[in-house]
């Protein structure tokens, strides 16, 4: 088990970090989020194809880099740090993991090359251990139904759709645009990862997997997603702490920097403490996902239930300790708060993850 960052991972971090610092400053993100193009697709193309981020979780046999969840986690740390409006989670993590689970070669090659963007057609709030979604059914060879609150669907050209067929769960790929599919943008809490509602009325599709394989592909995607989201939350929380500390050094009241008051220092020290635990938990989840460790479900449950509240608190403290300026639209802190709160709900709430953990760690509930 290695809970540190390897040289390769450090190198990847600086490539992604440099790109984002150049093209994805808080001002740029803020300016974009209320336009009709909330995603930065130029940035996504560079990240996906040139940096190769889209291919990290794709095996080399399908044109990918055959890297692991450890590298994807480092990318997510940086994306969280910049609340970058790119569909990495939906496409390169959720859809990719599901597709790898059913060896969808052609689709994976296109994703790996950055030529295509996909998402998994589930409500973003769904977490590992949930029942297979039943909102879409296979009827007469086409897909019918509705899925609400899907992340990254606005920019996807492939939907990976869990659907219920005559014999049970199936997984399908739908190519967009398709006249039988409506993608309706939703006014979203998270401005930098907007959600959309999907309606399928007789959409033609490619059947990727049937009962058994479909469920395990979706479960694997949700588990990987939940485990890796912890790294996004870590990066996000690090930004919140760093910007808060910088502000406390610079802002003066009562004739001295407000960061010299213990009432405020202790609060940021507590945030820093929580990040030490969150980093260890997030790294462990990424490491077990990378190696296929049998402890993965526990590691993911620990990281997901711990890192969500850490990120929310870091963002809430960021707002509070910035005082009035933290409450303004002009300051980017709210982008982080909105992402943190949406991430807390995404891929299973902390309480849901704790409920999932109980049997795994032999701590049964009341009889």
């Amino acid at each position, binding site marked *: 088990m290695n809970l540190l960052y390897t040289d390769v991972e450090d190198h990847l971090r600086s490539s992604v970090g440099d790109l984002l610092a150049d093209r994805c400053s808080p001002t740029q993100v803020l300016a974009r989020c209320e336009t009709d193009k909330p995603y930065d697709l130029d940035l996504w193309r560079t990240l996906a194809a040139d940096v190769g981020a889209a291919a990290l979780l794709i095996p080399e046999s399908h044109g990918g880099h055959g890297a692991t969840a450890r590298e994807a986690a480092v990318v997510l740390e940086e994306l969280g740090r910049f609340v970058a409006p790119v569909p990495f989670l939906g496409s390169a993590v959720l859809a990719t993991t599901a597709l790898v689970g059913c060896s969808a070669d052609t689709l994976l090659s296109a994703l790996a090359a950055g030529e295509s963007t996909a998402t998994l057609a589930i409500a973003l709030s769904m977490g590992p251990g949930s029942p297979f979604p039943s909102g879409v059914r296979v009827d007469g060879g086409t897909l019918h139904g509705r899925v609400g609150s899907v992340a990254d669907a606005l920019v996807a050209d492939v939907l990976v759709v869990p659907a219920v067929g005559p014999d049970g769960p199936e997984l399908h790929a739908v190519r967009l645009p398709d006249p039988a599919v409506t993608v309706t943008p939703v006014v979203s809490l998270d401005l930098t990862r907007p959600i959309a509602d999907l309606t399928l009325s007789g959409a033609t599709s490619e059947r990727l997997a049937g009962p058994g394989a479909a469920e395990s592909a979706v479960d694997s995607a949700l588990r990987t997603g939940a485990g890796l989201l912890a790294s996004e939350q870590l990066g996000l929380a690090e930004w919140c702490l760093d910007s808060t500390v910088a502000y406390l050094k610079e802002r003066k009241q009562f004739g001295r920097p407000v960061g010299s008051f213990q009432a405020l*220092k202790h609060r940021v020290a507590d945030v820093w403490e929580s990040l030490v635990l969150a980093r260890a938990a997030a790294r462990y989840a990424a490491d077990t996902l990378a190696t296929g460790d049998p402890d993965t479900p526990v590691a993911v449950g620990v990281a997901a239930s711990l890192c969500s509240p850490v990120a929310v608190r870091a963002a809430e403290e960021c707002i509070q300790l910035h005082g009035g300026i933290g409450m303004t639209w002009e300051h980017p802190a709210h982008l982080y708060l909105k992402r943190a709160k949406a991430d807390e709900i995404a891929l299973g709430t902390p309480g849901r993850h704790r409920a999932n953990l109980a049997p795994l760690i032999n701590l049964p509930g009341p*009889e």
Partner: protein
Amino acid sequence: MTQTRQPVGVEEVRRRVRELLAAHDPATTDRLEFLRARFDAGLAWVHFPPGLGGLGVPRELQTIVDAELEAAGAPDNDPRRIGIGLGMAAPTILQFGTGEQKQRFLRPLWTGEEVWCQLFSEPGAGSDLASAGTRAIREGDEWRVTGQKVWTSSAHNARWAILVTRSDPDVPKHLGMTYFICDMTAPGVEVRPLRQITGEAEFNEVFLTDVRIPDSLRLGDVGDGWRVAQATLMNERVAIGGRPMPREGGMIGAVAGTWRTHPAQRTAATHDRLIQLWVESEALRLAGIRLRQQLAAGTPGPDGSAMKLSFARLAQQLSGLELEFLGEVGLRYDDWTLRRPDRVDFFGREPGYRYLRAKGNSIEGGTSEILRNIISERVLGLPSEPRVDKDVPWKDLPR
């Protein structure tokens, strides 16, 4: 991948362990004799210099020594009984002691023949140790020391103490301190048990009345005691356990065990709290593993101070939950008798004891509040509070 440094001397260390075991079979050798031989072989603390129990090799090699000796059934020096000597006195003597002091003190300290205690805190100098007022007055080749120390664990078993004194009251507080080794059997040293909220007396008050300390037992220069004390306290903070903790090691294990054996007591509310604390305990354990990996990679970070904060908070929350969870049984306490234990034992006693003793975790070894100051100033770089006592002679400070 992270490059794993292959430290120099791995083979040499292994060879020495084999030689020690060959010459002193643990099965037939007297415990103390074995420990002395281990010290003399340089396998006590391998990062110490040769001749002083070490081999002058990187500290991480110690884990190899400890593992091999444990596997061979060798006795250890019961480190929990002599923690202050090992963690605080020894590194300070090594750094500031004279050749004579090192030769005299380190071996019996390490073998546990001589127990050490720490005479730092005073009733009027807790978090602000630099304001300590125990007076040391020089008289020829001796010093005459008078004052009161407190929170001294092991004082009743100790042969020696590390002692911080006020040698010059006319200069600002940090500049007028001198550090000594104090003979706990000297006339004028009086140890009184200090009963704590658990009923026992793990700590003591130590009264020093005209205690004569030869100048040869001074550690560091006259007036340089603050710097020496800082080094001692720094070692206290870096001292981490010898091996990684297993999952559910520590307080969470006790509470999870209670949970498993009391199904009728479970409620939905305590269940969620318990799992929340289990998750945090596991993350703290992982942070410890991560810290060790940083040390082994030669990139130590400041994470240890976060871990102390988390440890104290979790110990308190877990032990509080355990008592509440037990309901009627939680109304009882095992024993209020004043006892004087030679170590802290969280798990040999009942949950009520754990709850009360854990209150000390956020006070001892630096309060959580002082730790938050240190984190915010030294890790995060925030400015300190304005200081009113820095340039004032010690004798003029309000107290």
